[in-house]
């Protein structure tokens, strides 16, 4: 576009007189657009269309990326080291954010009037746990700690400090407990286990790696000293600057302080025949023999 130099008039006046911008007036910058190369349109009728001569290359049958003709490929020869070493043997804890928990409670999928356990969370399809993929439970994440309002008796496997604070601030009770893989499978899917007629196994203690975590009051571990837990509650309240509501005055005190027995006893569950289609009545049988009771 040739600009005429004006001394009296302004650019805006010029622009006003110019025709409006249409597709006919627009053009890309020279060099911005390069013509696409169309395969099969080259010299000699395109011939092989840039695919080479015979073989897997031309016929599109090359093996997967990384394959070295049968030789152990580089990406398998080099062992995993450091950060990634033994990754498949490490316990994993799929996260449960406070935001998600609040969402589940708000929608009525999980009942805050009852203790909220991994079973309840799985029943309401709030989390997806795969014990066979080295999942050892669920971890409580502090995303949504600012909007969390529910008062719950919560039991998870790992919890971050801020999440613990958020739960306790609202007058709830949180515990971290350990389930070994077999117990975990039973916990998340109790019905298939009960139908199998097996004796309920003892919940094993955590190994020496995880024992310090669950014996620590700061993590609200189930093996920790209750007095220390109380002290930790106060300390955390001080740290984050809130006052702990007195749960002894709470109407739901009994629910909030309900705890599980540390070692699940050996029991057998059976289904009672009922008139209805859904047999609801279940009976726990205890072994009478002394040795079995001890064990």
């Amino acid at each position, binding site marked *: 576009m040739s600009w005429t130099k004006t001394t009296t008039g302004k650019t805006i006046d010029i622009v006003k007189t110019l025709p409006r911008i249409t597709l006919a007036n627009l053009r890309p910058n020279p060099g911005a657009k390069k013509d696409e190369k169309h395969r099969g349109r080259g010299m000699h009728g395109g011939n092989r269309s840039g695919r080479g001569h015979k073989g897997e290359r031309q016929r599109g049958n090359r093996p997967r990326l990384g394959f070295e003709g049968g030789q152990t490929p580089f990406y398998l020869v080099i062992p995993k080291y450091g950060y990634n070493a033994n990754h498949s043997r490490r316990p994993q804890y799929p996260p449960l954010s406070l935001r998600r928990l609040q969402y589940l409670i708000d929608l009525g999928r999980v009942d805050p009037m009852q203790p909220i356990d991994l079973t309840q969370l799985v029943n*309401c399809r709030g989390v997806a746990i795969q014990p066979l993929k080295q999942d050892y439970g669920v971890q409580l994440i502090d995303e949504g700690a600012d909007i969390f309002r529910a008062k719950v008796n919560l039991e998870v496997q790992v919890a971050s400090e801020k999440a613990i604070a958020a739960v306790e601030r609202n007058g709830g009770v949180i515990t971290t407990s350990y389930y070994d893989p077999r117990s975990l499978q039973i916990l998340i899917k109790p019905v298939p286990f009960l139908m199998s007629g097996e004796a309920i196994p003892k919940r094993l203690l955590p190994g020496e790696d995880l024992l310090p975590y669950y014996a620590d009051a700061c993590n609200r571990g189930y093996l920790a000293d209750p007095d220390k837990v109380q002290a930790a509650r106060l300390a955390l309240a001080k740290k984050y600057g809130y006052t702990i509501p007195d749960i002894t005055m709470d109407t739901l005190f009994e629910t909030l302080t309900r705890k599980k027995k540390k070692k699940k006893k050996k029991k*057998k569950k059976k289904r009672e025949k009922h008139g209805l289609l859904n*047999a609801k009545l279940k009976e726990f049988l205890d*072994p009478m023999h002394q040795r079995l009771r001890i*064990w």
Partner: protein
Amino acid sequence: MAASLLGRRAALFFGFTKLNSFLPAAVQQIANYNPRPLWLNIKNPYIPNKESEKTPEWQKTEKYERKLFGRYGSASGVDPAKLWPSHTRLEELMAEEKEWHPPIEVMLKNIAARQKEKEQKRMEREKIIAANMAKMPKMIADWKKQKREAKQKQREEKIKRDKLLAEARERFGYALDPRSAKFKEMVAEIEKEEKKKRKLLKRRKREEEQGSAGTTAAESSQ
């Protein structure tokens, strides 16, 4: 229909006792998931006939009996006492547990012991480091001194060499190579002269001392 559900009466109808005052009325009912239907004939369960030959073998196994009990309970006619481990099996299990799953006190002790060992190692290493660091100023000073002395010596050597060279230059009239035989001879000569001078000095000194000693002895004897 929705309106009729939204109410406390509806909540009671759906069968839970306590109501959460936090939740709005619309969500007073807890969502009831309809689980998968359990395809289990509880009214007329199939309990296989143990004596008959027609029943397949797998229906007479212990595992199947366990499952029967799990599904139908006492109606299956299975004695629940069988389903717990037998005496021998129980022994095995107890032994296994004793070996592989120590009680909590033992585990805590092991952890404490390991921690202590680590701490001890760390303390020892720190001690060694501290001791060495305490030695450091002296070592630095020694090293500096050593370097200084070496330099000094080097300088002196240089001066001596230059002097000898100058001497040789004077004597012979041209710049003599210090490695040649003549130079070495000259050096030897100079050494001899120096030695003689030193000896003379020593003798004179001794005489002086003797003389002074004699006079003092004479004075004292007087």
